[in-house]
């Protein structure tokens, strides 16, 4: 499913990209643009680390999630294995760094991810009817409601999230009003099959 594309010499903005160096001595510098180690080339998502696609993500949603991870609103529940892996990645980011990262992520080309989940799309379509009011008919997201796009996201990641919401491993922390909404929604998915079905339907939406 991975689309071949021409590799061009791509000059990324050299903008704020703050490299931190200890002034007293000449030391190896580092920066906060380490996201692709886990999230894959140009933030395409990496199953190997269970880190989802970031390319094409709405700036407002990306910002909120980074802030949630940073403050511990997300990624603190002991059963949220993947969230726990992500949280320390954000816990030391400054507001400046977050702004820089959002610019950087914005420079990546959106590529729909590979399909890995099998389910009953027809059954999934029925379930999705209840989701569309917030996430949109084509899972394109709705900023006004704070609901992100789901189309083209790694399907294995969507499955993890729905399980985490359903079990209260994501969204139950105080201060996570948006996540809390999803806890209720995820209860409508009665079992793993229902989750796979709705995700396999989302897989059919908005793939360019």
């Amino acid at each position, binding site marked *: 499913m991975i689309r071949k594309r021409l590799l061009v010499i791509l000059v990324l903005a050299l903008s704020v990209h703050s490299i931190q160096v200890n002034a007293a001595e000449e030391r190896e510098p580092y920066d906060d643009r380490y996201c692709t180690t886990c999230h894959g*080339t140009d933030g395409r998502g990496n199953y190997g*680390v269970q880190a989802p696609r970031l390319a094409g993500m709405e700036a407002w949603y990306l910002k909120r999630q980074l802030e949630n991870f940073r403050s511990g609103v997300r990624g603190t529940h002991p059963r949220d294995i993947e969230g726990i892996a992500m949280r320390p990645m954000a816990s030391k980011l400054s507001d400046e760094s977050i702004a820089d990262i959002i610019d950087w992520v914005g420079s990546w080309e959106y590529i729909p991810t590979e399909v890995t989940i099998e389910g009953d799309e027809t059954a999934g379509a029925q379930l999705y009817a209840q989701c569309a009011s917030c996430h949109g008919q084509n899972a394109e997201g709705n900023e006004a409601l704070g609901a992100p796009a789901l189309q083209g996201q790694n399907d294995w990641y969507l499955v993890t999230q729905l399980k985490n919401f359903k079990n209260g491993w994501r969204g139950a922390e105080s201060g996570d009003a948006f996540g809390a909404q999803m806890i209720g929604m995820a209860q409508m998915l009665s079992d793993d099959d229902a989750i796979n079905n709705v995700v396999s339907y989302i897989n059919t939406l908005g793939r360019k």
Partner: protein
Amino acid sequence: MTRLVTRREFLNLLGTTGGTAAALKAGTALGLLPATGTAKALDLLALGSNNKKVAVLGGGLSGLTVAHELGKRGYDVTILEASHRCGGRIMTVRHGDLIDEIGNRQYCEFDDEPHMYFNAGAARIPSLHSNLLAYCKELEIELEVFVGENNNAYLQDDAMLGGKPVRANDYKTNIRGFLSEMLAKSMSEQQMDEPFTESEAESLLSIIRSFGDLSEGDLYQGSFRTGYKSGGFLTHGVQHDMIAFRDLLAGQMGRRALSAYEGDYGPCLLQPTGGMDNIIAGFLRKVGERVKYRAMVAAIQVRDDGVEIAYDQDDVRHKLDVDYCFNCIPTHLTVGLDHNFSGDYVKALKYVKRGQAYKAAFQAKERFWEKEAIYGGISRMNNRSSEIWYPPHGIHKDKGVILAAYDFGGGMYHTMMSQEERVEAHLSDGEKIHPDYRNLVEKPITIAWHRMNHMLGCAARWRTSFRGWTAEEEELYHTLQAPVNGRHYVIGDQMTMHSAWMESAILSAHWAMEDLDQRVRAELA
């Protein structure tokens, strides 16, 4: 109401689970070590006037091995390394070095002296790892003995002897004594001699007696092997008190104390003088100019006639077209690159899990262990910090760097903690052995391999069962070992059945180059 098992019952128990006759036959088949011992000479064709381009993805040991060997044969090699340093899991930390743990970057503040270093990844070279040793010789890397087993180091277990540390020597001598007494008793009671001839039985009995230092009547009554309680030089030595067997059984240290130095870990172990990364420095003296640093591979597109690589360096995406490519990037990170691998190949890449190794070290303000007659070696604790390593180098200097924790399997326990929590955990664990530990150490560093940039883990885990590889795992392994179009090779200890050794990384490189060599010979013939 616990019923005591008699010695005879115990031996009968052993008899039913094993059987001496079987053990006698098994003898030579019990191969603990993979078959190595002599380094293999690589017979690779020199290219002469033919031009072939090679990309090495990742400056790990296997990648550098390829660059060095193919460079010698006239291949045009480029090494792309994402990090600021080569070596990957061969990492020595010294004064001022950056420890690139994502989310917890540290600079090392150790004193700036040659013996003040910490091998945060690989730290021991087994004598039988002959291909690695051959490179050390070829590249003129000075080696010295690494001390692992040290009878004067401690064992500590809260459940044993009220948590008081015991010298390894005391522990082992007493255990051996008690075991020998039981065995000798059973021999003389005609319980075990059935499969032996008379002279074999005699010789076995004498081995048992000397194994446990038994006294008259085949009794274990303590031993001078534990050293003297007092005297010994100018006056007669006074023997240490025996430790009751039952007291030793209360702890969990037996397995670790008695088997920690077997197989690859057996003496004599070696280390490069001045740090394990001197091995990397040795390779870089040969191929250093071919390395591009902070060059993160982004894409691997395998074509019929070559491989197109893309990499990011200085915020610019570069292209590199080559004939062949050798890839030691950890499999789970390769999954996230822009590639055109087949479904089966990707399935194999995805299958491999990673070990979660964790290490920590302190600078010691003084070499307090030497005052306790410890020169090198490892103390072991039944707590999460698990081990303390005393440096075999820098003996009698003012300070030293000690390993404060080593968790090879379940390192997430410490990885999940903040830096402060990690350090406090090691201090409170270590002071169970060295009461004044907290005041004697400073300048901590921690290395959580699961979060180290561009590595995110330690040894590749192919096996999901302790019983061995499943047929499916074997198949996935061979799928990944086979080069894509004869052009893209996965290398590294991840592409062996004995991961987590430098020797394995080298042997994977040799396998791949020999496979390539056949193809090149066929093409040029």
